[in-house]
């Protein structure tokens, strides 16, 4: 078995509330998996189950091929990093790092060696004699990572480790975690509600909602080929534009919007060829796939519109307008110098979008 972590049919309920239901997940050796979802979706609960901090109601958990469903956290070969750092306030950094090793009864020399190595990797050697209260947020989180590092575990579990940090530090530490992963090549499971973290760090992302994994795929697939409406709307900022209408199948399938506008979707790769009749469907187009001005000329669908609102974002500009009777946002080059009230042509290629069935919300 070459899976690092395997979750089989996992269920968990608190009283009558079912948090996780029949959840399956296989994580490869050295893979970086991000569990992404809004708060209350069960992602942290799942992580706690893997760590052994919650007793599961049903199912099994395997780590490195061993069934650890009922093992103590310490016997699972996992290390965990928490959002609030969870450093022991009365101990120095050094003692924080070595606590787990001292509990395990390791000899002093080995402990010192491991603490030294971990603090080198994380560049926290000058802090070893300090107490956590005398550290900044970023330093505290490094120590917390170090605590998992010294124990030489197979699997790292991160529970929203960057959520308490400010934006600048967050992106710094994000890069550092990625570097750490490339260096150590451990399996890492990372819980977050921040899609940027998910997209930048993950080998694969598991998007969760109501205790169910909606889609498990690499960031590129998640972003470009979302499996259902929920994933499509959750990933991406600003979120995907949704144009709802009737999908009319046939040799040249089109979507007719409520306003009567028809959009040819012949270039779209359907998962299954649409039936010849008409079905309620939603066409999703990312803001950056709606081209503005001259660039729109080569697009299969074009329309002349009036720009309503302009939001300059620095590197690019968000333009809000109406296409086919629906409000949409388009990401345009900031060089275009758009102005509200400006009339110009926009266009997009439906082939780059996603089409979902309205009833099942699944990708067509």
């Amino acid at each position: 078995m070459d899976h690092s972590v395997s979750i089989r049919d996992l269920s968990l309920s608190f009283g009558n509330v079912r948090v996780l239901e029949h959840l399956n997940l296989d994580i490869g050796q050295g893979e970086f998996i991000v569990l992404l979802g809004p708060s209350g979706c069960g992602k942290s609960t799942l992580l706690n189950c893997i760590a052994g901090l919650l007793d599961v109601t049903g199912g099994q958990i395997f780590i490195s091929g061993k069934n650890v469903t009922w093992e103590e956290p310490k016997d699972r070969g996992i290390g965990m990093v928490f959002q609030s750092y969870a450093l022991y306030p009365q101990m120095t950094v050094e003692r924080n790092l070595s606590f787990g090793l001292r509990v395990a009864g390791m000899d002093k020399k080995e402990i010192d060696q491991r603490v030294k190595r971990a603090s080198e990797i994380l560049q926290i050697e000058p802090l070893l004699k300090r107490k956590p209260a005398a550290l900044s947020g970023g330093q505290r989180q490094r120590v917390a990572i170090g605590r998992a590092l010294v124990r030489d575990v197979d699997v790292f579990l991160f529970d929203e480790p960057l959520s308490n940090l400010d934006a600048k530090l967050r992106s710094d530490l994000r890069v550092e975690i990625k570097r750490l992963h490339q260096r150590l090549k451990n399996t890492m499971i990372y819980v977050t509600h921040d899609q940027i973290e998910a997209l930048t760090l993950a080998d694969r992302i598991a998007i969760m909602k109501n205790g169910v994994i909606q889609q498990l795929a690499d960031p590129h697939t998640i972003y470009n080929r979302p499996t259902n409406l929920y994933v499509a709307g959750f990933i991406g900022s600003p979120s995907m534009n949704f144009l709802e209408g009737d999908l009319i199948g046939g040799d040249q399938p089109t979507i007719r919007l409520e306003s009567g506008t028809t959009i040819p979707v012949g270039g779209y790769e359907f998962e299954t060829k649409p039936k010849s009749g008409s079905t309620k469907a939603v066409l999703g187009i990312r803001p950056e796939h709606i081209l503005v001005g001259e660039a729109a000329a080569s697009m299969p669908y074009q329309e002349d519109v009036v720009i309503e609102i302009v939001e300059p974002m620095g590197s690019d500009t968000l333009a809000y307008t109406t296409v086919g009777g629906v409000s949409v946002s388009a990401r345009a080059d900031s060089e275009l110098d758009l102005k509200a009230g400006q009339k110009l042509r926009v266009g997009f290629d439906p082939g780059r979008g996603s089409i979902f069935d309205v009833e099942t919300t699944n990708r067509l």
Partner: protein
Amino acid sequence: MSNPAQLSTNVALDAVDNKGMRLEGNHGPRPKPFFTPKRIVLYSILFVACLYYLFPLYVMVVTSFKTMPEIRFGNIFAPPIEFTGEPWVKAWTSACTGLTCNGLNPGFWNSVKILIPSVLLSTVVAAVNGYGLVNWKFKGSEIFFSILIFGSFIPYQVMIYPLVMITRELGIYGSIWAVILVHTIFGMPILTLLFRNYFASLPVELFKAARVDGAGFWRIFFEIMLPMSLPIIVVALILQVTGIWNDFLFGVVFAGTQNYPMTVQLNNIVNSAQGSPEYNVNMAATILTGLVPLIIYFISGRLFVRGIAAGAVKG
């Protein structure tokens, strides 16, 4: 006693007010006279309240240093003309408590012998209870806690007879151990509540981190939780020290004549039927008995308030 604290709070509030004003209207800080009507009323009330509580103490102290003839003369508010320490010595060493005349001295040591084990035992057990109830929830732990809390509403009197029987069956009735056991039992509800609330206010992630690090029940308790609970331990100690020191009922029922605590012996001195009442000795004895809780409050007042506040958050 609480005046300095009050003052500093006021000052802090004023500072906040000023800041708010500056933000709103760009005013400079408005100069405030020290004697505003509000303050005059406030301090008058505080002053009267202080007098009300301190005056009896004053009378006691003054009386305890007077000779008996001077006391019979009247003028209970006047300071002693002929200053004497004799009543204090007598109260401590030779006042009659029932049949023996050794003063409060043996009673003091009895109280100490009851106090120290009772306080330590009840605090430690309650701390473990609170920790278990918060971090190692078991099936029915909430119900267990509710029953425990309910226990604090049952009047002591109802429990005394059953407890007498229990301690008799255990063979410790009429000994110091019976009093210690009873104090530990009756301290449990309130102390457990204190510790539970305090531990519940600590981030649960610390506990999780320690478990991932491989620490078990006792190691987490001693190495992680206890070092963080100094404020609440101080509160528990103060509550128990004063409560147990001031106890009369359990001492008189369970301790047996040899082990009567100070409060019981004080009562025996004051209520002794023989001879005319020696007010000066009574006063000295009363002050001596009250001295321990008084000192505790003086030393730890500030810590106490902080700890109570820490234990109050999160129910």
